């Protein structure tokens, strides 16, 4: 599903975030990306979502070499990827429902279909009764779950999350991670960047450890 082939990413500042990184994730696989801050976790996710393009090497998503993708095809590519952010990045001037509906509105779905799918997504994250609420009135954990509902409402093949539990207490963090694991169970490829090593280990999934942009370790489930 996702393939990195000798990928190097050097930013305009000269900082080399990834160095000749190669790895592969199968469809429906779940992996944690971990490592010290600045190890290249976020850059790896940004390359998948085409927020950045590789300096050298190939990034392949769903059989497509996305490094060569034309700029006008990027929105279409991103619609196939659900993104969860550390600070959830909800639009505070809109209701929970409207936030979750946004990817479907962008994709141009019919209104009735949008309503149905948004309610299903909110139900999945346990916030169906808060659909009219303003995001600001929700707790941090609830806000993050709205962010997750928004990421999965369009049923993307790939779900990526950058430090999704960075602002949450251990209890909430475990719940959120469990939620990601559930999406993997229904066939979504899930990539989560996290520096919360104890939590990552408890999940029993594949763990990719980066160090200064290089692959340091790649634990497979069962090897732990």
């Amino acid at each position: 599903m996702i393939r990195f082939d000798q990928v190097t990413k050097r930013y305009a500042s000269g900082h080399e975030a990834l160095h000749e990184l190669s790895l592969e994730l199968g469809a429906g696989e779940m992996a944690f990306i971990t490592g010290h801050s600045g190890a290249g976790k976020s850059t790896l996710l940004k390359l998948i979502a085409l927020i950045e393009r590789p300096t050298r090497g190939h990034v392949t998503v769903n059989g497509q070499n996305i490094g060569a993708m034309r700029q006008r095809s990027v929105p279409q590519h991103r619609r196939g990827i659900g993104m969860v952010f550390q600070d959830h990045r909800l639009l505070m001037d809109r209701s929970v429902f409207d936030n979750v509906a946004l990817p479907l509105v962008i994709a141009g779905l019919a209104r009735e279909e949008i309503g149905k799918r948004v309610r299903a997504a909110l139900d999945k994250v346990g916030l169906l009764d808060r659909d009219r609420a303003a995001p600001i009135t929700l707790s941090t954990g609830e806000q993050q779950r709205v962010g997750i509902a928004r990421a999965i409402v369009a049923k993307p093949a790939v779900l990526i999350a950058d430090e999704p539990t960075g602002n949450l207490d251990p209890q909430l963090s475990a719940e959120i991670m469990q939620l990601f694991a559930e999406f993997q169970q229904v066939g979504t490829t899930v990539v989560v960047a996290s520096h919360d090593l104890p939590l990552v280990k408890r999940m029993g999934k594949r763990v990719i450890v980066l160090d200064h942009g290089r692959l340091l370790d790649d634990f497979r489930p069962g090897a732990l």
Partner: protein
Amino acid sequence: MFGRKPTGNRLKPTTAPRPAERAAPRQRLGFSSWRDQHLYSLFSSLGRLVARPWATALTALVMGLALALPLLFLVLLNNARSLSGGWQDAREITVFMQPASDDAAAAALAQKLSARADVVAVKRKTPQEGLDEFRAMSGFADALDVLKYNPLPNVLIVTPREPARGQDPAVLAALKAESGVDLVQYDASWRRRLGAILELAQRGVFVLAGLLGLATLLVVGNTVRMDIQARAEEIAVMQLIGASPGFVRRPFLYTGIWYGLFAGAFALIAVFAVQFALSGPVGQLLDSYDHRFVLQGLNPLAAASVPFVSAALGWLGAMLATARHLAEGHPE
């Protein structure tokens, strides 16, 4: 954060989606969703403008005044033109013969002039005809009776062929050289001068309209630019979740169109208000002109086109701002 109850039980188990559902929405937008998206942008942009009425009104007022000024000048110019229009046909040359010359000399000259290719018509008025006309028009009939002789000369009214623009007809010079001619009066020279002044004024109005149109573009563009900056986070999120550049741009374009429509309405109100305020005194002035001249308001066609033109200006200003300030696909 603390004392929170376990919430894991709120997370419902997910069910496996059917393969057909899994496909990312790649289908072409149907007409109804296209319409939904546009209606959504149309009304959400209006909602944003109405939510801060003072800022919106201020922007629309500045734009509206900038549009009203050239419109008012246009009305003024059109009235000046229709006022001068009464004299547009004054291209006859009036030739006063010397009092000493007799009817035969005048008739001979008239015949000679009629033969010229650049003369359309020659009308001769004898001193007697002139006196009768004067008697009928001036109301000095009794006073004229006192005169022992007719002081009026023979008069020829020559209608030349329309000369080339800005030139005196050739016959004018020929007439001045003719012996027996006392005075040649040609009204068209000053009429032409007035025409040139009006032409210049019209050009001035167009230049002014162009400059003020540019100003409205900048006003809209700058307002939309600030709007874009204020909504940078929202734009970044939309781009991250796959919004096309068109989708991100659309609400701002509608914002520009709304500003344009409001400004057009303000401009029309301003023009009609000025017309109304001036109609009283101008009416009195016109009464003294025996109603030979009517005040013309803004031409209905021009008035009807104002909202369209101003909406187009608003759209264009927003387009320029979005092209400049929405970095496509680079949300971070």
